């Protein structure tokens, strides 16, 4: 029961985080379209790190 609530919280947190990353990256790209490539790379790395954390927490909580 509690691990299900924990899993839900993890997903909510990861969702907020991914939204922030994606939103800010889009803002950045809109302001400086010439830096699109660099912003995308950084975005994917940060998203991957966040995802790793979220999956790690889900995996440990299972």
């Amino acid at each position, binding site marked *: 029961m509690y691990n299900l609530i924990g899993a839900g919280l993890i997903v909510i947190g990861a969702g907020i985080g991914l939204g922030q990353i994606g939103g800010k990256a889009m803002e950045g790209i809109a302001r400086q379209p010439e830096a699109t490539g660099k912003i995308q790379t950084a975005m*994917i790395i940060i998203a991957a790190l966040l995802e790793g954390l979220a*999956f790690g927490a889900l995996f440990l909580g299972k």
Partner: protein
Amino acid sequence: MMQVSNTIKTLLQLLILCFSLQSFALSDSEKEGTVTTKAEVDAYIQHHIKDAHDFHLFSYTSNGERKHVGFPLPVIVWSSNGLTTFMSSAFHHDDDGKVVVERNGSSFVKLHSKIYELNAGASQVEFDETHHATNAHKVLDFSITKSVMGILLVGLFMLMVFSSLARQYANKKVPTGFGRVLEPLVIYVRDEIALPNIGEKKYRKFTGYLLTVFFFIWILNLLGLTPFGFNVTGQLAVTAALAIFTLIIYTVSGNKDYWMHMLWMPGVPVLIRPVLAIIELAGAFIIKPFSLLVRLFANISAGHIVVMSLIAIMFTLKDSLGVVGATGLSLVLSFFITLIEVLVAFLQAYIFTMLSALFIGMAVAEHDHEHEHDSHGHELQDAEDVRGDFI
């Protein structure tokens, strides 16, 4: 009536065969009595996620007898009587320890895709109330399992394809045939992953590893989407081995600055340095490899579970939506999720390679030793020192 429902079942199974063989062996629940469709789907997905000792393509029931189609793989175990080898077909697709195989003076049973050796004198496996075997023990298992088979196939494939690509460069400048597909990918990994993350001086030394790991993960991920039921990159052992390779490479090739920044961080108060050292050590030896291995494992396993659950919709929602409705829904959903999985297959290979390159780059980065000093003579942190703390 029975005939009609059997015909529908056969048609349904044919449809899945066209779409994906993965959904096979979701056998009819009515005949087995107490087992519900949901439980069966669950068991089948669990079975697929795990490694297996044989290729099980599909099964069907004819004349009240369960038939299995697939092919066996060799079992190589180190038992109490030494090395023992036999084909997994000796178990006759049994997975509950019912079939006892006697070889080389020992008796073996297969329980939940694991080989157990019966203790001396025992003729049949006995279970306690939690369904653990009481009179059998695990053996050292070196079998060519489904995953090992996948790794060997992909290794052989990569060896053939890339050595022929390399040979083509010896004769002429432009590759032909399949090499034309591979060349842009190789250059992409070199110029977009290795070069920017490791730096111009050192990147050539590590490009080989990064290319190998990229293509290995990518091809295995794609192989997992084929109907043969491979789930190699969804095995913890495989992803852990890959993560340990990266760990060894960045630990061995780490230069003086890397160890200095890890153990005795310059530019911070002395009292904080031991604390930072603990965090940095945990980061380098536990968190980085763990995040690499769990990310790949969880993404691929989750992808497989989602695809198979969506395929299973046609069985679980058959009663409420009707055969056509459930099949249509399942077909549309699983088709699009499979397309996403093709993207995920590339993305996970890219991310694993990218993060490996980043970690290696952090270990071999050369710091400028003429740090700027502020008016009190303390060192100012440069950008790379700060970056190291975050990752």
